[in-house]
């Protein structure tokens, strides 16, 4: 892969994806400012996949999976990593070609590599969402997830959104020819202060692994879970109209609480305090919140609801 136009660092790959998708008309958003398990949780995907308003967004989302923590020692596994996420609604007919263009943009020569679309249906039990699509293989390596959303929060997606998710570390390691994630150049290796991925993240991987597995206060986490759940429901149960007579449905603040509950569940899971039978019950509770948030969002303007005044 040592070609003239080959990217030199992790961040260059991110920057190239950004400019590629910007050139294809996506709004380049910033990460959501909350802890989430995957880029799908960003409201720019979960909520914006609902309703009939066209949408096109691309963004990096830091993602946390406490159970995947390996104290920075495993070459591929991290409890904190980055996903690159693209969501376009309705899914354009040439989405596969657009996607292949993004691989070329980061230096993957499709004339030399074997790119394959291998069946992989996506389902998120916590979001009450599912879709059909593939995992994309490059020379036998899974480099992306490609999904046509069929349902989110229990609502049929009409129109259908096309979602692309790139696991950035894994993809970048492949493109850059790196075997251990911590050895990957974060910025240009010829920069005055050259930083590797490990310089940025090794210590935090250790710290969070210890906290996730051993230290996090489970009683407190459980209480926070219940608080988030209660607040989400309280927000959604509030009257649609405020004291000044403005109609404001608070789908996003409620959804924040749903995201919190989901992450707290992941932390509890990493602490090993959730039994197999309880697991399903917790997932069901988060899904119930996600569904209510989706129900609320489709009542809003961004969710495609038409104001009765506007119609008249």
């Amino acid at each position, binding site marked *: 892969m040592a070609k003239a136009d080959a990217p030199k660092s992790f961040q260059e790959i991110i920057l190239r994806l950004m400019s590629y998708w910007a050139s294809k008309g996506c709004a380049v958003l910033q990460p959501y400012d909350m802890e989430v398990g995957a880029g799908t949780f960003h409201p720019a995907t979960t909520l914006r996949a609902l309703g009939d308003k066209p949408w096109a967004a691309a963004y990096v989302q830091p993602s946390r999976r406490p159970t995947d923590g390996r104290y920075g020692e495993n070459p591929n596994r991290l409890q904190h990593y980055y996903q690159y996420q693209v969501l376009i609604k309705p899914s354009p*007919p040439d989405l596969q070609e657009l996607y292949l263009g993004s691989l070329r943009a980061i230096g993957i020569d*499709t004339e*030399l590599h*074997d790119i394959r*679309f291998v069946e992989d249906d996506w389902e998120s039990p916590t979001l009450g969402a599912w879709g059909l*699509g593939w995992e994309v293989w490059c020379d036998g390596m899974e480099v992306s997830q490609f999904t046509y959303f069929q349902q989110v929060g229990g609502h049929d997606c009409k129109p259908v959104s*096309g979602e692309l998710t790139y696991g950035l570390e894994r993809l970048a390691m492949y493109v850059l020819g790196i075997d251990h994630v911590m050895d990957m150049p974060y910025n240009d290796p010829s920069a005055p202060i050259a930083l590797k991925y490990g310089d940025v993240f090794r210590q935090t991987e250790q710290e969070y692994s210890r906290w996730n597995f051993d230290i996090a206060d489970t009683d407190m986490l459980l209480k926070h879970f219940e608080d988030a759940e209660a607040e989400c429901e309280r927000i959604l149960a509030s009257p649609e109209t405020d004291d000044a007579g403005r109609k404001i449905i608070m789908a996003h603040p409620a959804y924040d609480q749903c995201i919190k509950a989901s992450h707290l569940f992941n932390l509890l899971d990493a602490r090993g305090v959730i039994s197999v039978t309880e697991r399903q019950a917790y997932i069901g509770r988060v899904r119930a919140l996600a569904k209510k948030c989706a129900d609320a969002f489709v009542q809003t303007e961004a969710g495609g609801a038409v104001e009765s005044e506007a119609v008249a």
Partner: protein
Amino acid sequence: MPDLLIELFSEEIPARMQPKARADLQKLITDGVVEAGLTYASAGAFSTPRRLTLTIEGLTANSPTLREERKGPRTDAPEKAIEGFLRSTGLTMDQLEARDDKKGQVYFAVIEKPGRPATEIVAEVLEKTIRNFPWPKSMRWGAGSLRWVRPLHSILAILSDEAGATVVPLDIDGITAGDTTRGHRFMAPDTIQVGGFESYTKQLKAAKVMLDPAEREAAIWHDAEQMAFAKGWEVVPDKGLLAEVAGLVEWPVTLMGEIDAQFLELPPEVLQTSMKEHQKFFSVKNPKTGRIEGFVTVANRETADHGATILAGNQKVLSARLSDAKFFWENDLRTVAAHGLEGMGAGLDAVTFHNKLGSQGDRIRRIEALAREIAPLVGASPDLAAEAARVAKSDLRSEMVYEFPELQGVMGRYYAQKAGLTDAVADACRDHYAPLGPSDDVPSEPVSVAVALADKIDTLTGFWAIDEKPTGSKDPFALRRAALGVIRLVRENDVRMGLERFIAPWFERELFATRSYPSGNGIVEKPQPLRLTQFLTKTGEGENEDGSYYEDFDIHWAQIDVTVADLLSFFHDRLKVHLRDAGIRHDVIDAVLAMPGSDDLTLVVKRAEALSETLKTDDGENLIQGFKRANNILTQAEEKDGVEYSFGADVKFAETEEEKALFAALDAAEAKIAPAMAAEDFAAAMSAMASLRAPIDAFFEAVQINAEAEVIRRNRLNLLSRIRQICLDVADLTKIEG
């Protein structure tokens, strides 16, 4: 006669769905056009990841004109009758024909349905097929509402003959049928105009698409074998994988690589599973070392560097995967070295097996107790069987099995060997799950047999105890398979054991046993019985001296007896299914199940086999008639007289030679049958019974049962009773049909 070519071009169709989709497309289209009145000579369906194709040769160009004549009312019939006839035929008065009939003039309706062109019919059938295609899962895309397995991009549909090709006029939600397709996504993406099936396949091949999946399979296998042969290696055959891989490529390019030496110490099953599940690689064996040393991968394109980059990439991914596997293997070996195999399984106490049946640890303790009791009956040492049961499921806690659940048992055997356990114990770790499928081998090593039986009997009894029995097609815990496993294990190893002896005490142990429940991180010991609620009534509760809590229960023994009997009858039902496949009738099994010892399945099978053989003989078949005749006469007489004729037939009241001969024959048969039954020589017992056929027939021929003299009559009825009794000692012949 024109040929029809249809191609539905879409984004990548899952490999596993392609075979059924081909068959469905062919059936739906051919059935549809035939129903509309067309005929055809032959048809064939093909698929690649991006296209489903159907070719039909020799299709009729038009459906035939249909002419139907219907006879109506007489011309002088009331107006209402004529109006009704017009309505039902859809004609007007002037279109009716008046014809002379026997009884005068009658109206006739001649309805002519003109034939329709094939293009029109195909368009209709194809639209219906696409809109109702039975994909296992289908989806919408973009802003449309059409459903397909993945977005459908174009439809090629042409009828062609010597004169040229005609496009079938069809538009489905904006996709207009045409006469073009595309080649390989990367190597020949341009549009191709198609004139007919033959040129289509040729053009596709030129555009790097091999249409026929069978051809792709053959090409992959041929190249793989050639490459392996050149190195003196052998590809491990895997038909399922071959079909899947052929469904993932349009232009197969087979590549072979070597597995890095650092991974060759891994068990071959691990290499094979990891390569197949994650990478869809074939394993390649070096026959000189007997190890898996290479892999074959199939790419979807040719490259300027002849696949060097692709192979290097795949090799790298494989190394990362196998590094994981090696990491798991080494961690597991470390655990075994430090804590033994039993220590590896220590965490199973915290893993729920079923919320009403406790943890995996509880289950293992139950299996251990059972295995110890079963061991002497299968020729195994009770201590070894118990040890094997204790460690047989330890590998469920290994990192390797967590990653590759299908390697359970296989890994247990390796870890048992590394832990220095005996071969018998190590083999039991692997083999106690067997037999899983009906064609699986049944273990024969005694320790494996003991643990395999204990495992299955515990599972069945447990789920019976909590009333989770299979119903209809639902059998989520695979209990039918477990019961069949028990049947095959005892039968093929000739194991003699009464099942009841092992099922009933299960309840005693469990209702009094100390249970452990998973609770958060730790394990809480609760000195309470399992909550098998239908067997218990709580009678009290209180605090022990140490402050702990206790409850008292009454145990419902009668309810336990009912459950045990129900489980035994489940075994018997499975046995009937099993023996039916071996050609033994269900009524024959019923006849032997009525005998004592019916919970000893080996005994039941032996009896059933002997009886089945006997019934195939002329004597055996006729004996049944004689027995039934004796039994019927006797039963009627007993009902009529209100007494039981069961004792005291005396030869001195015998009047005819036939009657005396029967006495002698019964004495002789009885003398043979009793010892033969005791020795379980059922063939001898049955043949002695069958030998009664001639004397019984002769007796009925010559003798009137209802004699004038009451003494004679009674004696003869008592004689019939001896026939009945001797036969019933062998099997309950009343159950035999016919």
